[in-house]
């Protein structure tokens, strides 16, 4: 086999050294700075973009959080105001109710007093009339008129019985 013929070894090794060295120089001079550089900068760009995206996401989350906190606070405040207002209104209306009730009660009392007075007056009037009628009737019927105070007393007694 020609592979084991040492005569060709020096030339093969010589040209192998030359061409392999050329290829190595090519990789070092052309591939590493060019391709390696651009791939490195691409990786850097991707990493930077990812970092930026993560940063923006964190900021968005923070903004959402603070917005929600503000919202919750505003809602709490609104509820407190609502409660306060409702309490105030109920307090006010209660006070007015009481006031009106008092006025009405006073008027009722007054009215009742007036009615009682009127009724006593009327009863007194009836008593007088009844006594007068008694005196007149006894005079006409028996020829002798009863005394007025006695008539009154008997009218009183009859009325007390009727009640």
């Amino acid at each position: 086999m020609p592979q084991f013929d040492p005569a060709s070894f020096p030339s093969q090794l010589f040209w192998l050294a030359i061409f392999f060295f050329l290829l190595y120089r090519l990789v070092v001079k052309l591939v590493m700075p060019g391709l390696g550089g651009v791939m490195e900068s691409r990786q850097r760009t991707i990493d930077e973009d990812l970092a930026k995206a993560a940063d923006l996401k964190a900021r968005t989350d923070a903004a959402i959080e603070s917005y929600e906190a503000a919202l919750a606070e505003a809602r709490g405040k609104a509820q407190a105001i609502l409660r306060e207002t409702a309490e105030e209104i109920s307090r006010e209306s209660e006070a007015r109710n009481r006031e009106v009730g008092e006025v009405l009660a006073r008027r009722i009392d007054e009215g009742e007093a007036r009615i009682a007075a009127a009724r006593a007056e009327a009863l007194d009037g009836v008593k007088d009339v009844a006594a007068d009628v008694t005196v007149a009737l006894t005079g006409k019927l028996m020829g002798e008129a009863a005394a007025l105070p006695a008539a009154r007393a008997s009218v009183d007694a009859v009325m007390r019985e009727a009640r």
Partner: protein
Amino acid sequence: MANPVEQFQIEPIVPIAVGPIDLSFTNSSLAMAFAVGLSAALFYAGTRRLSLVPGRMQSLAELFYEFVANMVRDNVGKEGMRYFPFIFALFLFVFFGNLLGMVPGNFTFTSHIVVTGALALVIFIAVTVIGFMRHGVGYLRMFFPHGAPIATAPILIPIEIISYLSRPFSLSVRLFANMTVGHIMLKVLAGFVVALGVVGGVVPFVAVIGVTVLEFFIAALQAYVFVILTCIYLNDAIHMH
């Protein structure tokens, strides 16, 4: 019918002699020139208009770069990237050497033991030097596996030394034998096609087609194996085991 080993004959193209030593530019040298030229063409075209978003040629060039870079990163780690240019050049040289060898009429320089042997020897020496530079005399611990009982040392150490020293042989013979045998097989089968004529030759012809596909696969695979073993040896030298 031509002798199947004739295809490995070194033929001078430009005879050069330095004293008694023959340094002729041969068909083997021409094949090396093609492999280097193809690599140069690929990376010249791939880096002409560099952009963050790669074009067609740049993508192809990056494919090669990424493939070998990942191999080095996975097998050697970050420190291994210092030696990436050498490993990348090695891969391109063997890969294009093997594949261009599949072009009919072109010489396969990786089918010569002196070429694969020289590459393997350079790798072996470089790896050993790197190992001693990083670990000093401690690199000799390579020859005694960590945690093995001390009584096994008389057996283990010679075995480890032999396995270490046989690395350049297995590395070079694997590539050389694969390339040589593949090409001989193709030549013999193709000889049958001619010998058996139009009717009988159909069977070996189909076989030749199949073997040709297989040989393309082996050409790529052996380049990969050659380089990944280099990475594994380098990893041993850098991290021990």
